[in-house]
């Protein structure tokens, strides 16, 4: 009986009416308008990019204005430098190749244009133009590794086994084949070789002076601490920045990350969004939510994801969730019980010691129409993301769904800010357990 009834019910959906012609016409206009609006934005961005290239080609000396755009490593996937504040990083494309050397370069000065091949390290691995112009206080570190499948040099005394972080003090003065890169104004050149996790690692340190100061060595060490080799990233090894609050039941989680943005449609963008809490009766259907994300991967089979969207850089919620409470906007909701009340994408974000102000200064407050709003902000290839959450429990961030660090503890209030490495604030959002959410973004950000 029941199965017959269920069959009848399923068949009855065929009796649902069709939309009328006028509604269909209006919907078609709105859908195409959404596509055209997006196209105009892409066109405007491309125009700005083209104009910038033309200006550079004409020799305009934009110097430090443009340099930050070529700083970040291309997502250090197994090998690379996570740049220290004030440092710049490049690397060859992709992870460590089988038998092919991979190169990663970090410098405390902007790279010369010749050494930056559309965001990747020049294939020779020697940032020659940068070294020629290296000022006395300048430091450049060049690292190369070879796949363990075909090591260039057998393991042995040439490559003593070492643990990360490597030490600058283990490096020795070194002139490759008796060559000084800049004979007329000699550089300080040092070499360090190590077998790290099965990889032969070659490191060359270039200082702008033949007699580097202890401060320069210390600076080089700080950056060397952020060299990634193999699959062991910085993330969990970094001690949790969990601060005990005044009340024993409250914990403040305050974290800052350096996050890689994803190129999509020719633009590197950060997506900032906020959503008011939605309550039914005494419980939350959807928690107040704020997030920063990048790139695609937003869709899912049903729109209800198992975890937070893979494109999330970080998210915060506020309020006490039930078993079925969700978080996120209508395009991508996830159950808080599975995804977590706050979290960060550990595959796109690495801990950072940079300072990110939780402020709305110079940002515009955005109205959350229909309870939620999303803005796209053009961004460099790396952004700094900070969240500060007051959690109603003792909590820490733990691995979830392999790519996230998250907690399920209910959050009383939380703030989330995103800025560029050069200090431009892109967005700020905050949420409270009363269901409130606010979103502020830079003027240049565009409603999604």
């Amino acid at each position, binding site marked *: 009986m029941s199965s017959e*009834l269920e069959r009848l*019910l399923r*068949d009855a959906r065929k*009796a649902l009416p069709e*939309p009328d012609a006028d*509604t269909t016409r209006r919907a078609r206009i*709105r859908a195409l308008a959404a596509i055209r609006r*997006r196209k105009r934005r892409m066109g405007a961005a491309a125009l700005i990019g083209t104009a910038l290239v033309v200006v550079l080609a004409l020799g305009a000396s934009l110097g430090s204005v443009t340099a930050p755009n070529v700083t970040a490593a291309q997502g250090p996937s197994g090998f690379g430098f996570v740049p220290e504040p004030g440092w710049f990083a490049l690397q060859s494309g992709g992870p460590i190749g089988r038998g092919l050397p991979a190169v990663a370069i970090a410098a405390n000065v902007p790279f010369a244009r010749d050494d930056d091949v559309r965001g990747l390290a020049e294939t020779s691995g020697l940032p020659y133009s940068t070294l020629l112009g290296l000022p006395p206080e300048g430091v450049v570190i060049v690292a190369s590794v070879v796949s363990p499948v075909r090591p260039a040099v057998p393991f042995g005394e040439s490559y003593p086994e070492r643990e990360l972080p490597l030490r600058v003090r283990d490096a020795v003065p070194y002139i490759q084949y008796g060559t000084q890169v800049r004979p007329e104004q000699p550089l300080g050149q040092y070499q360090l070789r190590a077998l790290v996790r099965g990889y032969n690692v070659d490191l060359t340190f270039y200082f702008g002076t033949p007699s580097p100061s202890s401060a320069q060595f210390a600076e080089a060490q700080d950056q060397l601490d952020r060299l990634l080799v193999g699959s062991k990233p910085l993330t969990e090894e970094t001690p949790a920045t969990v601060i005990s609050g005044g009340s024993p039941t409250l914990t403040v989680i305050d974290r800052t990350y350096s996050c890689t943005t994803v190129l999509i449609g020719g633009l590197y963008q950060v997506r900032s969004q906020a959503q008011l809490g939605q309550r039914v009766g005494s419980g939350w*259907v959807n928690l107040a939510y704020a997030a920063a994300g990048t790139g695609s991967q937003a869709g899912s089979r049903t729109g209800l994801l198992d975890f937070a969207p893979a494109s999330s850089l970080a998210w915060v919620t506020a309020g006490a969730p039930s078993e079925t409470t969700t978080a996120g906007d209508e*395009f991508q909701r996830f159950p808080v019980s599975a995804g977590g009340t706050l979290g960060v994408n550990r595959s796109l974000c690495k801990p950072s010691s940079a300072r990110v102000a939780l402020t709305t200064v110079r940002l515009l407050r955005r109205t959350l129409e229909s309870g939620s709003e999303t803005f796209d902000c053009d961004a460099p290839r790396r952004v700094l993301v900070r969240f500060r959450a007051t959690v109603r429990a003792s909590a820490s961030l733990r691995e979830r769904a392999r790519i996230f660090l998250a907690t399920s503890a209910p959050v009383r209030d939380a703030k989330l800010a995103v800025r560029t490495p050069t200090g431009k604030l892109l967005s700020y959002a905050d949420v409270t357990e009363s269901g409130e959410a606010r979103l502020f973004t830079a003027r240049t950000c565009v409603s999604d």
Partner: protein
Amino acid sequence: MRRRPDTELIVLARKGSAEAAEVLFDRYWAHAWRSAYAVTADRALADDAAQEAIHKAFGALHRFDETRPFGPWLKRIAVNRAIDHLRRASRLTRLDETATLHAWSVSQAAEDDLRQWAVTDAVAALGSARRMVIVLHYWLDLSVEEIAGVLGLPVGTVASRLSRALAELRMALEDQRVV
């Protein structure tokens, strides 16, 4: 263009191809509207919700993972918008008293099938809470867990509502000798 798979159309539409977007629209608009109508049982609300859904979905194509099916994604957006509209109109509670057979209209083809007509009317006559779970489960193919997520209810509550709604429908349809 009309034979191209969704994935290609989505990629083209992202690049600004109005033709690809139109094909995608034609392929899924009615589906989205019917989803909204199934939830709201009201043409005006369904019009608004479905239009908003298609506008938002097309505006967010760059955020969509084209390796996933487009239809269910759009349907889910339409359902969410419809529920929001319904809540905004405070109909979730008031429908209990106002739901009538006239809230539903059926297609000409369906008029020939009295059983379908009867079932549709019986669903329309359910209280809003029970009607909603029936619609989401049997017409929009959401699982019990997904319905719980959409409505913000415990899974057990959804399951019991579904069971009671089926029992109520069975009684109504047995009276009419439909089942």
